[in-house]
């Protein structure tokens, strides 16, 4: 009895080995897939030893994301709750533009890729990056564009322990950059709900990054708001499926 149990177990174990070799990545839905983006910052001096694929899914009901920006570097957080946002983060959170953030890195110390366009609710995009061994900290940022200065993302995730073909799934909430008052007023929101102004240098809010409290919207009593009930969101707002493919 004992031996037959073991034997059966071994057989099933063999099946499991095959299954796990098939990777955990079956939930890429194929919708809106762009994986042909070229890395915008690379170095000729380093050997590209590792390759990662990050599938970004917009889990909100109605908040388009600015082009998701993926960065892998040698480490250091791009923001911290309770601390003021950098100017580059302010620009991303108020306008969706990540170009300042990308140019703020020493180009030998970072590799990055920006999605070719906005990521609409319910859609996914695949981003892939080849990196050298010393670049093992992953950051991903995007603005929720129908807000004043909300962003979602993660910073400084150490991916050095991820084995070949191993997948990790992370869901992420929404932060408030704290650099622009959440007035929801016409003219202040860059997304399609308003097509207003994005980045402004003036900081007229708490000047600290915090967890976002959500949008109020005109349907919920903020009569001046250009947002509607369809723009509301709860956490998490985004799903990342990170796989080491090389």
């Amino acid at each position: 009895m004992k031996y037959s149990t073991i034997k059966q177990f071994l057989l099933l174990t063999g099946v499991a080995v095959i299954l796990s070799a098939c990777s955990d990545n079956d939930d890429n839905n194929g919708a809106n897939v762009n994986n042909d983006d070229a890395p915008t910052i690379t170095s000729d001096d380093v050997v590209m030893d590792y390759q990662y694929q990050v599938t970004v899914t917009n889990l909100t009901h109605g908040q388009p994301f600015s082009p998701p920006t993926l960065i892998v570097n040698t480490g250091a957080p791009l923001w911290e709750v309770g601390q003021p946002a950098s100017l580059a983060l302010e620009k991303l959170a108020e306008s969706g533009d990540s170009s300042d953030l990308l140019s703020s890195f020493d180009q030998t110390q970072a590799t990055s890729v920006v999605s070719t366009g906005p990521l609409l609710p319910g859609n996914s995009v695949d981003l892939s990056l080849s990196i050298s061994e010393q670049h093992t900290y992953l950051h991903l940022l995007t603005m929720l564009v129908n807000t004043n200065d909300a962003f979602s993302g993660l910073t400084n995730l150490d991916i050095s322990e991820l084995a070949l073909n191993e997948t990790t799934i992370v869901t992420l909430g929404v932060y408030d950059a704290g650099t622009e008052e959440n007035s929801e007023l016409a003219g202040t929101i860059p997304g399609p709900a308003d097509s207003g102004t994005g980045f402004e240098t003036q900081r007229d809010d708490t000047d600290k990054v915090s967890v976002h409290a959500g949008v109020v919207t005109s349907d919920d009593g903020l009569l001046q708001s250009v947002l509607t009930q369809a723009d509301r969101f709860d956490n998490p707002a985004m799903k990342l499926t990170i796989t080491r493919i090389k």
Partner: protein
Amino acid sequence: MNKTNFLIVSAFSLTTFAAAAAEIDVTVQNTTHAMYFTPLIIAAHAMDASIFTSGQAASSELQAMAEGGDISGLESLLSGTTANTISNPAPGLLIPGAAATATLSTDSANQYLSLSAMILPTNDGFVGLDSWKIPEEAGTYTIKINAYDAGTEANNEIVSMGSGAPGVLGIPAAPGMDAGTGGLGVTTSESNATVHIHRGNLGDDDIAGGNSDLSNTVHRWLNPVATVTVVVK
């Protein structure tokens, strides 16, 4: 005992030891203030099966569960796979604060845990867990899970008898008996046709009119909406 023997016999396959059949207790607690869960469906399944995937359109079986609490379609979908499934452990409605426990004997191929139940009163909101990897090691594990919108029905927030049938607009019931009437409807359209994180009920403060039949001080929530405790024996 068998496990110990197995370790001695073939230590090389340690990493695949999750393939063993297991017995697990799954407890789901409704942690919301005033929202109700319809009968739960809980399944241990293989990697290629699931109940839902965020960012993808709902199956018609998921739609029936999310709009009317009917889990029979999901049951038959899962019975066509190798899944080990338990239905309606509460039994009936899982009221705010209450917990229900299901004991599952999982076959060796079924290493992932999923569950779902409709949230009332909502149009097509549901509490869900998608393909959580059941740990190999015996112990107690806690997961906080979220409210999803199936993306199959406009969230008009009007309570209407008989609207639990798939494709019939409205909220089939407000079990707390605390909903209003006469709402005009919050919206008639749903722009996101995939399973996504629920944006929450809007509600209003007019029990005999307004746009919503729901109350803006009662029928709201923030994620997470449930705690799942898994005991691997």
